[in-house]
């Protein structure tokens, strides 16, 4: 692992100082650095099966809304979720969430492949389609593990237990008193809840999550563990 400093990159996760405090090891991803792992790379996926949180703020994501957005996205090869507040995995591993009849949130796979997102972002705007800077406006944290819903019940009033909040369901709600979007998109067999929330509140939310997780021995894990979980059926 090379000695890379996250504050040398142009784009920086709002959490990079927290990661440095946790002795994180970083790896390059586009024009940013993401946490590869904090501790034992072999151990982290196992922690993720129980309860963990990962910072995905530097992974690609985008959004589109407007009356023309769904049709336009479909024309670009996006497979649309059937109803608002549901999400659908795409063939290339990216995830598309429908937040209303006119609004889409698109995020990359756990490798940070940005093919679809770049393609959509670089399309000439069509009438009634408006881009949203989701990578800048919203943080992206992933909470994984069998105890995730139990932890969430301390900070969020929506019932996220896995038998009540199915794979592909989306909840726009309040988490620790800030607004956010929660998307259930499991990593292989491990339940995973992706939180997209106000980026200026990222540190606040991160601290709240770690505090609420403490009771269940939840910890922060890096993208290496996330990828490993995603690859496990």
């Amino acid at each position, binding site marked *: 692992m090379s000695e890379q400093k996250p504050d040398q990159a142009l784009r920086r996760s709002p959490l990079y100082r927290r990661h440095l405090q946790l002795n994180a090891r970083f790896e390059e991803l586009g024009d940013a650095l993401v946490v590869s792992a904090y501790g034992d790379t072999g151990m982290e996926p196992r922690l993720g099966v129980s309860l963990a949180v990962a910072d995905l703020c530097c992974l690609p994501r985008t959004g589109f809304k407007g009356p023309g957005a769904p049709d336009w996205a479909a024309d670009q090869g996006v497979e649309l979720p059937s109803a608002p*507040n549901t999400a659908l995995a795409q063939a290339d591993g990216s995830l598309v969430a429908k*937040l209303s009849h006119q609004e889409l949130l698109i995020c990359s796979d756990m490798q940070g492949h940005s093919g679809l997102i770049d393609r959509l972002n670089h399309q000439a705007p069509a009438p009634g389609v408006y881009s949203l800077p989701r990578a800048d406006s919203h943080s992206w944290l992933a909470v994984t593990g069998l105890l995730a819903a139990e932890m969430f019940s301390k900070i969020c*009033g929506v019932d996220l237990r896995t038998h009540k909040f199915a794979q592909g369901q989306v909840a*726009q*709600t*309040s988490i620790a008193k800030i*607004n*956010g979007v929660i998307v259930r998109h499991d990593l292989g067999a491990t339940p995973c809840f992706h939180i997209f929330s106000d980026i200026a509140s990222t540190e606040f939310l991160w601290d709240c999550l770690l505090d609420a997780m403490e009771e269940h021995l939840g910890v922060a894990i890096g993208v290496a563990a996330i990828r490993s979980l995603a690859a496990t059926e």
Partner: protein
Amino acid sequence: MKLLTCPLNGQRNISEFTYGGEYHPMPNPNSTSPRKWAEYVFFHDNEAGVVIEWWCHTASSFWFLAERNTVTDTVIRTFEASEIFKRRIDFVEPTSGDIT
């Protein structure tokens, strides 16, 4: 805590919502009398019975309307604003009369 059903997001705790006041049709701002306009802006019916109210689901910024019985504090139904506001509203010059 009460529950409220958002037409977009479903049933949620009322703490997830912002109250937007009673719904009143706006009189034509360019032709109505000062009295009628003042009543529209400043008077609230505060009716004992079924009223229509604006509510916004804060996390998704989605506005909708609710029929609520203010005596029993029961929400009879909630519905999208497009049920009342079916088409674009335009205002015309002060002298020429009504909203089209």
